[in-house]
């Protein structure tokens, strides 16, 4: 399997941002800020990195993406629909009665590996998947996307300790470092700095980049960034609410849903 190179990552990012805005607006749902901060990362993963087949979503040799920040469900479903796992029109059912598209990521949706929503669960699962891939002698790679606030959870640090000890160089953790968590700025709630150095001290190969720079993301994620014998962490510096001026870097957009006027403004800014 190969990554899909026909899709343009910048255009993909634009499209999934618009979908997520419309979904969150229609459902009066939360977490749009968290969706927008990781849109460019998702776009590069789904257009340049993940070796997956929408026609065979459970192929045993597929790469795995575990989205541990499960509250950003709208952008995950939007990405999967744009990548062809299910019709884009299904996105309209987001959070509706009886829909599989729940407000936190649901594994009954084609293309979703793992249901998440309680923070600190994804990385241990991804570590298990990476260990199994090694044992199978498989070339499949495992990616795990975390939030920065999520790194408060101790379970992550158990996994961070484990992965280098077992030389899981087929594992890439990506941290959407948008600097805002549920009830305040990360630096005020529970400071994480020096963040990349913490991972390095645990034995990870750590890279920092601009999480909205499609070129940098593509270069670092799509090429063989793995260092032999060590897992890699990509600390992606992002802006919460990226792409919509009145949402950018604002805690309130962790919760609020745009009204009709705000949706129109936001879509115009993103480029609907």
């Amino acid at each position, binding site marked *: 399997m190969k990554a899909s190179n026909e899709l343009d990552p910048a255009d993909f990012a634009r499209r999934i941002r618009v979908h997520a805005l419309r979904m969150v607006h229609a459902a009066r749902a939360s977490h749009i800020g968290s969706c927008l901060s990781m849109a460019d990362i998702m776009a590069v993963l789904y257009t340049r990195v993940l070796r997956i087949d929408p026609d065979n979503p459970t192929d045993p040799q597929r790469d795995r993406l575990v989205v541990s920040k499960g509250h950003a469900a709208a952008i995950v479903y939007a990405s999967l629909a744009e990548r062809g796992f299910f019709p884009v029109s299904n996105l309209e059912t987001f959070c509706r009665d009886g829909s599989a598209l729940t407000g936190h990521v649901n594994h009954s949706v084609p293309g979703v590996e793992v*249901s998440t929503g309680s923070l600190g669960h994804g990385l241990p699962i991804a570590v298990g998947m*990476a260990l199994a891939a090694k044992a199978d002698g498989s070339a499949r790679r495992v990616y795990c996307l975390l939030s920065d606030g999520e790194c408060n959870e101790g*379970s992550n640090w158990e*996994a961070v300790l*484990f992965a280098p000890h077992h030389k899981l160089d087929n594992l890439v953790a990506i941290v959407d470092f948008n600097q805002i968590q549920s009830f305040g700025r990360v630096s005020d709630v529970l400071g994480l700095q020096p963040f990349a150095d913490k991972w390095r001290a645990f034995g990870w190969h750590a890279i920092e980049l601009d999480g909205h720079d499609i070129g940098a993301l593509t270069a670092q994620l799509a090429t063989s960034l793995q260092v032999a014998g060590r897992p890699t962490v990509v600390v992606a510096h992002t802006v919460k609410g990226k792409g919509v001026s009145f949402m950018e870097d604002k805690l309130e957009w962790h919760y609020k849903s745009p009204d009709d006027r705000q949706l129109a403004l936001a879509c115009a800014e993103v480029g609907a």
Partner: protein
Amino acid sequence: MRNAFINTLIVAAESNSNIWLLSGDLGFSVLEPFAARFAGRFVNVGVAEQNMAGMAAGIALSGKTVFIYSIGNFPTFRCLEQLRNDVCHHAADVKVVAVGGGYAYGSQGYTHHAIEDVAIMSALPAMQVFAPCDPAETRAATHLIAASGKPSYLRLSRAGEPELAAGKPNDPYRPRVLRKGSDVLILASGPIASVAMVAAEQLGAEGLDVGVASVACIKPLDEGFVRDVAPRARLIATLEEHVLRGGLYAAVAAALAFGPRRTPVLGLGISEQLSDMSVAGSRDALLATAGLSPPAVAARIKQAMAGAI
């Protein structure tokens, strides 16, 4: 029991190369033979149960059958949400094996007493719960869960438990009659069934005909068996090394609750342990304190019979 478990798991792992075993840094003098034989499928993950349970889900979702092993409350309570979300919600083929069920680690104190585990594990969706009473049932249950494909909890005691009946248990899902008797039927789960056997003997000498059946599978409970045997006895007693809420007593009582003619059910178990109740003691001493020594069990059954008749 733990040796019966690991020896059976080794046999299963020889014919199934997808069987893995993770340990939370416990299993000294027990797990070594598996680790030596299947080095690539054994991982001591360290003292990190949340990571162990999450990893087990990730490995299982990659096509494996994963056993995780630790003491009583550690692979259950410490990583409860990982079991709920990552294992059960994904129907991941993970088996939680706890040693030290009940008061097996008597003198080690409250942290090492696993006396609410069956209730909590039973509440998890699709989790099957096994508490074998002797090595033979442990072997049968281990074989079963190694092949069932279902999330399971296997509650073991320690080492040296006697076999409580001759022959091989056929089906761990079905209760196994250890002793026949018509007046009273004691349903017991776990090695405390041996207490039921002694109490039954004692009551027999006093003229009561007491049967004993081991309920090795608490969830799903064989409710058909319970409903079938209940009307034939004058009293059903349940006996478990566990609090009464959410364990065998609750399951048996619930199975009978809607019946038209209900046989009384006497629940014998451990009371909730409050903060001023922590003392050192052997398993036997702690069971005696809880009113679960053989003479105490016999006396409570006699007393109940007096009230029930």
